[in-house]
């Protein structure tokens, strides 16, 4: 087996790390990593699954809570779970505040045409809060950069399971890294709304 040249350097650098991290007692991560951050959506125009044109910055300026995820429709592993989590939590999320938006933004925009986004949506329960977005490759790259969600080696297979939540425009984003269950998502969403109401 020959490692591609670009990987050999990485191999050497990481070998020492592997030894270090293999030490007894190293705990396996579980649950999602949680962090508050401020992100500013770029002024890009995306396309939704109904072929509608959408300015992302304008959409995110609307006065409602937002749950945003990056997915791609041919993903066979984490994207389906990410989407399922938000949609399955719909009754609880709606009970907390009915007017919220769920955005699934494709990170494989050339494959994920509006038609393909519609096909992807067919496998999930219908949810009027949910909007699937795609766009030009460069514009999607700008959105990923704005949310500090670029892939570590430039390939979508190394994308992470991010869920971004925000209570209202001007409020910080809660960035969750890792797959979570519905209960945990609802708890995080509830906490975020509660924090926002205290500030207001």
């Amino acid at each position, binding site marked *: *087996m*020959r*490692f*591609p040249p*670009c*990987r050999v350097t*990485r*191999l050497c650098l*990481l*070998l020492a*790390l*592997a030894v270090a*991290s*293999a030490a007894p007692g*190293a705990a*396996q*991560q*579980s649950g999602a990593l949680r962090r508050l951050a401020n992100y500013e959506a770029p002024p890009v125009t995306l396309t939704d699954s109904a072929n509608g044109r959408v300015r992302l910055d304008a959409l995110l300026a609307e006065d409602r809570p937002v749950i945003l995820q990056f997915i*791609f429709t*041919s*993903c*066979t*592993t*984490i994207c*389906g*779970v990410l989407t*399922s*989590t938000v949609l*399955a939590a719909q009754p609880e999320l709606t009970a907390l505040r009915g007017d919220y938006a769920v955005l699934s933004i494709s990170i*494989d*925009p*050339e*494959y994920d*045409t509006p038609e393909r986004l519609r096909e992807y949506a*067919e*496998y*999930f*329960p219908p949810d009027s809060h949910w909007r699937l977005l795609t766009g*030009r*490759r460069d514009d999607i790259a700008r959105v990923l950069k704005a949310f500090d969600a670029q*892939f*570590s*080696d*430039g*390939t*979508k*297979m*190394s*994308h*992470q*399971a991010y869920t971004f939540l925000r209570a209202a425009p001007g409020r910080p984003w809660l960035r969750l*890294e*890792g*797959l*979570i*269950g*519905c*209960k945990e998502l609802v708890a995080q969403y509830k906490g975020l709304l509660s924090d926002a109401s205290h500030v207001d």
Partner: protein
Amino acid sequence: MWIRAAAALRGLLALVALGVAPAPSQSAPDAELGKRLYLTGTRADGAMAAAKAEGDVPLGGPRVACAACHRPSGFGSSEGGYFTPPITGPILFSERRLDRARFMMNRFGQAQSSRLHARLVQPHMRPAYTTETLARALREGVDAGGQTLDAAMPRYDLTDADVADLTSYLHSLSATPDPGVSAQEIHLATVIGPEVPASQRAAMLATLQAYVDWINKGVAGEASRPGFSPYHRNDVAGAERRWRLHLWELHGSPEGWSAQLEDYYRREPVFALVSGLAKGSWRPIADFCDVNRLPSLFPITDQPAIERAGSGYTFYFSKGARLEAEGLAAFLASQSPPVRLALQIVGESGEAAKAADDFGRALRAKAPGVTLIDAPWRRGEVDISAAGGTLDAIVIWPGEAEDEALSSLIEGLPEKVPVLLPSDRTPMAMHRLSRESASRVLLADPYELPGAVHPLAFRVRAWMRSRGLDINEPRLQFQTYYAASLLDAALSRLIADFYRDYLVEAVESEAEGDLNPGVYPSLVLGPGQRFASKGLFVVRVDETAPDGITAASDWITP
């Protein structure tokens, strides 16, 4: 239900034939039903399996299938920081052993998060699975060693019979290496059809052979110094194989190609096809590959077998002629002021008729308000009076018409009306048309624009020159290089697990890496994707541009 009943009947008949009394209410496990459950998530009774991930997240549709994460090969996957381990028959039903070769690739051969790496360096040891412990893993998420599986592994609601069917299938999953690989060599073939221009044939074969020679020199170098590295290389040294390239040349009409391919394959089975060149439809070759489950990497064709491609074994650069038809339709549909009346001139060949169909369908979908009139072009004659109004655009699908006839046709069309053409007529537009006519021609261009910088292009050109290759068909040679280098990268992922489904999955994953030598703006695949480049430019002739053309549109992905 009938499938289950039929399986039970087959099992009963088998037992009766053996003179064995069947156990009451117990049907024999059915590997075919297990396969269906594994690949699609469909249970024996025809219902989709119910499953929850992350404790309370119900999964639906194809995502409930085992193959979604563990992949059709059973060798697993890694994505988004989540490592899905291999569950092939030999692995699942054996005690877990640490395999440094597999570990090295998963650990270092991909960029992944610390979560994944932490998971990899703390493998849970476990005994071999049995039907009972597999049932517990599937239902309760407890592995054969009694440890709790990651919450990302769904917990399933399955009957005992479902688990028995699945167990039966998993025993056979990637249990026997696929043909085409010996202890020393990987056999590969490239297909060349009849009537391919000699210069293209020679350029493609020379490039491919240079790559094979380069691989084999590397393998020989590794083999000449066993024990050179006390670390990882010793673990994977046994996976090194020389490449042996076979030329499968086709003769006669496409109806006879299948038999010729079967004959080649019977004489020397190969592990994969790489590159390839043929005029006309690639379908007979793609069908052969699908029947034999033979991966085929990036033949150079403008007529790929598009239908069923997603579940097929052939990877293409693009959708070829259909991409151009749909791309030009998207371009026309986006014009402002909007196009109201367009004429489509259709040549005599089947290719031209097909392109016209694709174009018409795409235009009606994207711009229902456009009136599109078809005008057949027969024996050099075309009647455009049927359009009956002020034309906004003329699209020509010349098929196999001579350039001379096409240029004469264009010169005689109404002045100032834009004329849209497929990409293979770019040289004609640049060199045969009058300046006035050339100025109104717009051409599909599915390739990278001249002047775009791709760092790898310089390296690949230098690689070719240093091997004494004449670069007289640069696009075709760079396409061939990409096919070979992606095969190289994908085979590296396999280590010594020479299974074709696993190769397909490795190609899907590796295509998006840093291998694009610049013929296309980007080459990207994903699970189930078979067309790496998905868009095109529309260009116009520009005498002032260094390469004679300039972009008339952004990148269009129809």
